[in-house]
């Protein structure tokens, strides 16, 4: 099997995963571009729209204001049927007494007694029906999706134009009381605000009682123009008890009293709006798009008469965002720029005027303003983003121009018939509804087909990894077939899909095309698996994972379905990792490998026969385990708390050194950080000294010797500058600023050149021609007496053989005049892992720079921890000399777990506000101007550093047991300056071959690499599959946008980074392999000459 086909196969598997992730994402994560344009008073949305000179009036912008003040009572989760009276749903039957019916009696009373003053609507919210998204919609008039691709990810603050912004820029005083979500959404815009914590869902009363304490005094003080009161009790009651609970009746009665009280306090120029932001299901949850979740109540009341007619029997249905343009125009403000809602036309009728014509004209004016604004938004949006359908856009544009022209004509000749005005109104409404429908189509609808397809594709890819990693070790396994056939099928899938789409006249979607290609290429494989299912493969072969590891993976899988466990994943990962470590130690003991063998057998001189597997000292393995646990626990000290756990305190060590006030503490910490750097460097050099030869003249070795200390120096200097930048004397400011730009770039450049050198000449071997006979190195240990047991024979016979060999060779050499040129090649046995470790070290330094200084301690721990883990794992692996080589599942799972654990212990959390944005400014203190890929790369490298490092280091799992092989032998040889040497000559096999065993069996080596890659991809793939399933199954969950969706995004990004890193790591090992081969060839040529 060739290397290139192994890599290609991995690329194909990665492509399957990517296609699945992309397909799922396209169905689940709805995206929209956020525009930051603002409507302004001076700038009307279109030409010549303002009739009857209202521009002259004070305080009027696009339209004359009807109300000067507004009270907005927002009752969270006020479902529409909560305002219905007690009545039976089926006529003729006695009424069912439901706790939530008939409790809001004051609304009914007002509607009956003052039909011209009040109106009730059934307002339809757009999914996702979560409070934050609804609040965004209710203020911007748009359809918020999960990712509003805006300029600012770091906070939740609304960047788009919105009602609150319009209020404040018009000089209105906005007073807020209630849910503290508003604090994040609108930081610092309220003239007065009373925030109450909304986190605890079980607390029904804190927010409501807090509001009631302030509501009436504030209303009476008159120090406000806009008063917003956001009550949370109903929502929390739904989450805690569900709507069918007596507690709900109490809560709604309380709300009824509130409304009644507010109505009594209203003055004539004030509008009262009572609205629910979303509904709830029968269980009291919300977030999805079922009828009960999206139907909410909207109640308007004005002390002066507002409506010409009596309310209809059945309340009208309006979209929830209609409130935005309506409120804006009623208060004489510009409609927010991004609004796509339609004004509620009947609010703009003239009540006093008896002339029906003017009423229709007023409605048409409001609608026309609204339509102009929406049309302006569409124009701007479609210029910036391409996700709206072009054909539909043209149709709507034509509709709008036609209606607008008609409206202008009617304005010129006001004596026109009322029928013409009605047509204009209908056309404008059609336009507005068409726009909304189009936007909903592209922004606010889960595509269940895409989600299910993506999840199925991910599951199939995992299955493929599992099966092929099983098949790979079987004899007669041919990768070419498994690679070529899928390619053909994939191409066929693409062609068929493209043809179908072209026939149907649909747009070619690259995501769907990719998914079709993936499905097509999977088909023959699935067919093969199906065919081989019944005949020869028992079920046990399909589940090759040993029981405890399988349980561990299952726990990881299941934990992603619970929001508590996702939030506590940092602790859970540490717990699982600790369990796995103890399990490994216990397993070693169970199989008798842990104990020193002398407990079982009598100690014997020269026991360690060269053929016996390396036996480890009991305390050695136990010490490794305890050391690992200690490292994991220490790394856990650098922990950032998720926001969902208020009781938890983040580690203070995650802040940069510059934030420390005390100079002494700062110096101490700085010393510790530089110490960690130096320790890291020293450890790596020591390791390389021990296993690889630092005396080799190869350029990459020279780089390790001289370049790495330079990088450490650069990093330390940069940290010194960064932590003490404010204390620099003014004369040196320019120098400091220059240095803080140059130093990080220099370190990164050094690392890049080091990697290049490593790729160019990866063989760090010192070849030394030795002339003459090789030293006789056979150490004969004394043995006397007749051999009594098998062990004795095992020991004695090779000794005799070797002795005879030496004798024979000595005679041969004496017969020749000059002995053949032998070459001693040092460190050939660790040539692969030396390259990987060098690459990892070169990667670490730039990544370290992107982190806060004190994280360097975590990186030191990371190296230590993986070193210990590798040793522990290697202790449990017995190498079968001719192959096949396998990497056990527990190694791969432990490695993946450790990657996750390091992600958390470097101060990350899978939520957007927790991303370390400062990383984008390392080396670029002035910002990046307009380029976006470079800061994204820097922030991404900071966030997924651990994924990258562990994925690149993955081949070490395969290589390490071979390295550990040398230790047993080294103990036997006594000379202090021991350098394990792998002889080129095949007959001198008494030296440990170490990684040369891999080279000797290239087929098995390639299979092992493939298997390693597939297993790692499987472990990661199972996680991403669990995230995808959790996000789709729990898409109605309260926490879906706060916990599950960010987790999925981070996991998907982490998977992509990991797979790329894995590919690079494997490619590096293969490059080294190629280089070693060519080195051998040169050596042979040199000998022949």
């Amino acid at each position: 099997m060739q290397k290139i086909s192994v890599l290609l196969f991995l690329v194909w598997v990665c492509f399957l995963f990517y296609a699945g992730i992309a397909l799922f994402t396209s169905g689940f994560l709805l995206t929209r571009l956020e525009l930051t344009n603002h409507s302004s008073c001076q700038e009307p949305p279109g030409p010549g729209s303002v009739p009857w000179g209202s521009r002259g009036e004070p305080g009027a912008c696009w339209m004359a204001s009807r109300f000067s003040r507004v009270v907005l009572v927002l009752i969270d989760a006020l479902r529409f049927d909560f305002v219905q009276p007690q009545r039976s749903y089926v006529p003729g039957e006695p009424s069912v007494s439901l706790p939530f019916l008939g409790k809001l009696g004051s609304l009914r009373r007002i509607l009956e007694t003052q039909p011209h003053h009040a109106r009730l609507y059934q307002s339809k919210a757009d999914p996702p029906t979560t409070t934050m998204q609804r609040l965004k919609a209710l203020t911007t008039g748009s359809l918020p999706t999960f990712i509003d691709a805006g300029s600012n990810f770091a906070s939740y603050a609304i960047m788009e134009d919105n009602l609150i912004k319009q209020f404040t820029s018009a000089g209105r005083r906005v007073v807020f009381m209630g849910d503290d979500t508003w604090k994040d959404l609108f930081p610092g815009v309220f003239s007065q605000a009373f925030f109450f914590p909304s986190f605890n869902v079980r607390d029904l009363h804190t927010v409501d009682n807090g509001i009631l304490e302030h509501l009436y005094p504030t209303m009476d003080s008159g120090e406000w123009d806009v008063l917003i009161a956001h009550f949370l009790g109903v929502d929390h009651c739904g989450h805690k008890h569900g709507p069918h609970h007596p507690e709900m009746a109490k809560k709604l009665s309380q709300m009824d009293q509130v409304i009644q009280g507010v109505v009594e306090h209203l003055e004539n120029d004030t509008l009262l709006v009572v609205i629910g932001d979303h509904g709830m299901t029968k269980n009291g949850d919300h977030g999805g798009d079922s009828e009960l979740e999206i139907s909410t109540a909207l109640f308007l009341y004005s002390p002066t008469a507002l409506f010409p007619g009596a309310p209809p029997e059945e309340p009208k249905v309006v979209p929830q965002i209609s409130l935005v343009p309506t409120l804006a125009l009623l208060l004489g403000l510009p409609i927010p720029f991004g609004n796509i809602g339609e004004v509620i036309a009947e609010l703009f009728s003239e009540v006093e005027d008896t002339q029906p014509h003017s009423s229709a004209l007023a409605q048409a004016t409001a609608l026309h303003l609204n339509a102009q604004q929406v049309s302006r938004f569409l124009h701007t949006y479609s210029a910036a983003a391409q996700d709206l359908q072009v054909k539909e856009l043209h149709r709507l544009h034509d509709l709008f121009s036609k209606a607008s022209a008609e409206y202008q004509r009617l304005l010129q000749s006001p004596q026109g018939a009322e029928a013409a005005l009605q047509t204009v109104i209908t056309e404008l409404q059609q336009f507005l509804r068409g726009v909304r429908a189009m936007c909903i189509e592209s922004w606010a609808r889960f595509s269940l087909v895409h989600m299910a397809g993506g999840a199925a594709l991910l599951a199939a890819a995992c299955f493929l990894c599992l099966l092929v990693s099983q098949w790979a070790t079987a004899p007669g396994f041919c990768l070419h077939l498994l690679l070529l056939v899928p390619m053909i099928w994939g191409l066929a899938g693409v062609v068929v899909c493209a043809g179908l789409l072209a026939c149907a006249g649909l747009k070619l979607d690259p995501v769907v095309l990719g998914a079709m290609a993936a499905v097509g290429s999977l088909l023959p494989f699935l067919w093969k698996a199906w065919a081989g299912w019944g005949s020869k493969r028992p079920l046990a072969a399909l589940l090759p994972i040993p029981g405890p590891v399988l349980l561990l993976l299952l726990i990881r899988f299941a934990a992603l379905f619970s929001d508590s466990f996702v939030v506590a994943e940092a602790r859970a990962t540490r717990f699982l990792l600790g369990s796995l470590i103890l399990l490994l130690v216990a397993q070693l003991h169970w199989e008798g490998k842990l104990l020193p063998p002398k407990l079982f057998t009598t100690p014997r001189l020269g026991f360690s026969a060269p053929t016996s597997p390396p036996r480890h000292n009991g305390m050695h393995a136990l010490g490794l385990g305890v050391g690992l646990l200690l490292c994991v626990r220490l790394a856990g000290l650098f922990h950032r708390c998720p926001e969902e756990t208020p009781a938890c305190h983040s580690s203070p060590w995650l802040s940069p050194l510059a934030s420390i006030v005390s100079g002494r503490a700062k110096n101490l910490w700085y010393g510790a950080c530089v110490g960690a750097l130096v320790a890291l460097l020293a450890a790596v050099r020591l390791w390389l000294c021990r296993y690889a030869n630092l005396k080799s003249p190869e350029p990459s070795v020279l780089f390790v010797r001289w370049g790495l200390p330079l990088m450490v120096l650069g990093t330390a200097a940069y940290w010194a500058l960064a932590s003490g930048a404010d204390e620099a004397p003014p004369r040196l400011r320019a120098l400091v600023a220059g240095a803080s730009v140059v130093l990080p770039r220099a370190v990164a450049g050094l690392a890049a050149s080091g990697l290049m050198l490593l790729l160019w000449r990866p063989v760090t071997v010192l070849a030394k021609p030795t002339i003459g006979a090789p030293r006789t190195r056979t150490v004969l240990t004394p043995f006397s007496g007749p051999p009594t047991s098998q062990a004795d024979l095992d020991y004695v016979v090779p000794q005799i053989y070797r002795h005879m060999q030496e004798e024979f060779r000595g005679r041969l050499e004496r017969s020749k005049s000059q002995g053949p040129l032998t070459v001693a090649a040092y460190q050939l046995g660790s040539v692969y892992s030396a390259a990987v470790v060098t690459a990892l070290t070169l990667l670490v330094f730039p990544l370290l720079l992107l982190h806060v200084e004190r994280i360097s301690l975590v990186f030191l721990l990371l190296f230590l921890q993986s070193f210990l883990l590798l040793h522990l794992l290697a202790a449990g692996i017995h190498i079968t000399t001719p192959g096949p080589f396998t990497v056990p599942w527990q190694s791969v799972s432990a490695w993946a777990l450790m990657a996750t654990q390091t992600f958390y212990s470097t101060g990350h959390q899978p939520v957007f506000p927790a991303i370390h944005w400062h990383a984008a400014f390392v080396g670029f203190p002035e910002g990046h101007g307009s380029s976006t890929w470079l800061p994204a790369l820097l922030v991404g490298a900071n966030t997924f550093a651990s994924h990258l490092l562990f994925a690149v280091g993955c081949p070490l799992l395969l290589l390490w047991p071979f390295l550990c092989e040398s230790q047993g032998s080294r103990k036997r040889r006594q000379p202090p300056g021991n350098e394990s040497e792998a002889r080129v000559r095949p007959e001198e096999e008494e030296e440990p071959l170490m990684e040369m065993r891999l080279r000797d069996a290239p087929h098995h080596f390639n299979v092992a690499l493939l298997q390693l890659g597939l297993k790692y991809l499987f472990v990661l793939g199972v996680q991403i599959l669990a995230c995808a399933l959790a996000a789709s199954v729990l898409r109605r969950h309260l926490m879906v946008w706060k916990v599950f969706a960010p987790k999925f995004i981070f996991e998907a990004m982490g998977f992509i980074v990991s797979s790329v890193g894995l590919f690079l790591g494997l490619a590096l090992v293969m490059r080294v392999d190629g280089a070693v081969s060519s080195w051998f060839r040169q050596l042979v040529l040199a000998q022949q000459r």
Partner: protein
Amino acid sequence: MKDSDIKRLLYIHLSCIFSVILSIFIPSFFLENFSILETHLTWLCICSVFVTAVNLVLYLVVKPNASSKRSSLSYKVTRFLKCCVYFLMSCFFFHVIFVLYGAPLIELVLETFLLAVLLSTFTTVPCLCLLGPNIKAWLRVFSRNGLTSIWENSLQITTISSFIGTWLGAFPIPLDWERPWQMAIERKPNVPYVVELGTVTQ
């Protein structure tokens, strides 16, 4: 022989479970305000004392291991003292393991230590009773092919399932149900007895 051993084992385990149950109910007659959830520290103490006492008494009565050859008083005293030292050491060892697993170092130190004591009573005490203070014998029992009698088999199963029970007890901790029993780090290793009983009696 084997059947009678199994019967004796069954009685021992039944009485252990009974003692755990007793430790829940008996103290409420003597102590005021006793409940598992609120005064969990007291309960942990009482439970470990009960289980230790029952174990000691039963093993003394049943005497599964052959009596040692020497029976001088000084030998017995040193043996007993050695047992005590081993028990304490195992408590400290478990405490260290719990802290390494993520238990807080300073807060809740008493809870953590009592949990270590409780786990020791479920694991170390039977080992001490059956095998005596002999680490090599312990290590032999807990490795493949190291069993010599049904008593050791039972010991192996009980101890391992106690560890697993303790391990399982950590799972409800992150859940946000806000129950008082979550606040106390209470993991109840008496669950494994039920699991293990079925295995032994078969």
